[in-house]
């Protein structure tokens, strides 16, 4: 029983990691309709930025307030300079984000030689122990942050004008445009927001992992699966999808075989998708949108 509960806890905490990485990706995917292959590399960049700040004596939980705005600006630049000119060429957008992925990975490799870097600091050693249930402190923070971000983002999307504009664009681009919403500006804001969320993820995940230029690739496939599972553009979908994937992975790893856990949950993922193509919390029919260009 204790083992079962430990697996449950570790699955939920892993789910927090997936949720945190996926929320920004899902926002971009749902609103701008871009499959951003480079999102994992955005997280990786943020991790290295956090590492750099830590060498200056700034811990990751302060660094996040520097890294997230920086990534916001970086996202603005990428959307404005690379993706916006390709707005009517969705396949070329995939191509461009793949180019960015290769570029970012190798730029960091060239700068660091690929040495595995770890944040030094006492925080990663904190363990919360409740009657034999063990939870790493840094992972609990990630989970709490993912939950808080999901709630905050929901409030933002439902309570503010900018958020309502974003939701309008998710639901119907044409309609939104007719209602006087500046769709391009909404895209710009959303992509930057999604990048900033990658920044938050990078800063909070940095104390958990050994950094390498290729670490982004480890998150990205899972994150895509979470996004699709949760539903296009749905914030609670990404949150719950992340938890679902985390739990599946933990239970499959422990009770079946760690070597097969990826295969198992990918297959479950495809199976769920086939039964419910719009994802768990997606708007039915969203998956029909496809990779089509918007009429100019």
């Amino acid at each position, binding site marked *: 029983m204790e083992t079962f509960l430990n697996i449950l806890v570790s699955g939920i905490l892993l789910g927090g990691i997936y949720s945190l990485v996926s929320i920004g990706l899902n926002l971009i*995917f749902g609103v701008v*309709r871009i*499959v951003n292959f480079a999102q994992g590399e955005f997280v990786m960049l943020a991790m290295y930025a956090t590492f750099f700040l830590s060498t200056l004596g700034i811990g990751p939980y302060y660094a996040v307030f520097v890294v997230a705005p920086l990534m916001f600006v970086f996202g603005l630049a990428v959307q404005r300079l*690379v993706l916006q*000119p*390709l707005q*009517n*060429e*969705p*396949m*070329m*957008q*995939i*191509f*461009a984000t*793949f*180019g*960015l*992925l*290769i*570029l*970012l*990975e*190798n*730029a960091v*490799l*060239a700068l660091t*030689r*690929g040495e595995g870097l770890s944040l030094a600091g006492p925080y990663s050693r904190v363990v919360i122990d409740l009657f034999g249930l063990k939870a790493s402190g840094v992972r609990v923070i990630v989970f709490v942050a993912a939950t808080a971000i999901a709630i905050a983002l929901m409030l933002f999307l439902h309570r503010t004008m900018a958020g309502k504009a974003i939701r309008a664009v998710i639901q119907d681009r*044409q309609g939104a445009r007719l209602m006087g919403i500046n769709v391009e500006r909404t895209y710009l804001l959303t992509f930057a927001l999604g990048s900033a969320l990658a920044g938050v993820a990078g800063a909070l995940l940095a104390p958990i992992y050994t950094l390498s*230029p290729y670490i982004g690739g480890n998150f990205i*496939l899972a994150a*895509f*699966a979470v*996004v*699709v599972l949760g539903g296009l553009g749905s914030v609670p979908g990404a949150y719950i999808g992340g938890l679902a994937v985390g739990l599946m992975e933990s239970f499959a790893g422990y009770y079946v075989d760690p*070597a*097969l856990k*990826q*295969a198992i949950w*990918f*297959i479950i*993922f*495809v199976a769920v*998708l*086939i039964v419910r*193509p719009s994802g768990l919390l997606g708007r039915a029919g969203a*998956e*029909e*949108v*496809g*990779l*089509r*260009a918007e*009429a*100019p």
Partner: protein
Amino acid sequence: MKPPTLPYALEAPPPAFARALAAHAGLLLLSAVPLALLWSNPYWVNVLAYTYLFAALAAAWNIIGGFGGQFSLGHGVFFAFGAYAVARLHLDLGVTPLLALIPAGALAAIVALMISWPTFRLRGPFFAIATMAINEACFALANYADSLTGGPRGILIPFRAGIANLIFIERWKYALLMFCFMVIVVLIVVALRRSRLGHYLLAVRADEDAARAAGINTLAVKLKGMALSAALTGVGGGLFAMYVRVLDPPTLFALPDIGVKFALISLIGGIGTIMGPVVGALLIVPLESYLRGTLGGAIPGGHLIVLGVILVAASLFLKRGIVGGASSAWNWARRRT
């Protein structure tokens, strides 16, 4: 909603079959020029062998990815099935790879049908992501299925030169083999483009709902296109197996080197055009090898930084690929005069 814009080559009515065949045969012959010029230089001949192989694989991908508009990122699975099938048939049963290519292609097509029948319910990015997930699942399974794939150790095919083994001492023979494969694939695509299936695939790409409304069985059309695409990919995997002779899961399932690369080559050359994948491969594969050879040793990842910049720049300035861009320029010039 206005129908999505398509490259010129898709909008134009297909010319008479004989003329199309002649035109493309001419273009293919043109792509043999580098081989003729460099045939005594084994380094470049080796690069050209990959170039032709990847041109053929991208052209095969283009059948369903370009004409059918189903952006698959899981073609690495069919590639790997073909490679493993040829290796196993050759090593265990002594079947000559030349013949083993046929069951390899058939197996890849069957696998493709099994995977695609459910996943074709998904569209656009959802389909792309699902196929990518299947690629990763198969990667893990291939690592695990020791008895079939050799697991992480992989399969090593011993060097036994001879046409029956598809193993050659001279690199130019490989290049010629790959070139022939590319010609076959492109001619199949030329024929397909004019066939009923070809038209239906284009219709599905343009507007799946409209195609269904017009009485096309869209699922059957997509499945046929996918099966053909996967079969050719499986054959390509078999040829790759006999060339490299080291088959391990990271080599066969690596997304950036295999599954995603087919799509990238098609995109840069001109997706949904007949010669686009060939042009794309002729550009990308030698460029990548050249950059790796000159910069790879100097700065870690240096050549990939350059390649990344080129990819981003290419997407911005060649929005419809080289062939798409060239043909609309040609069209524009013709209209002006």
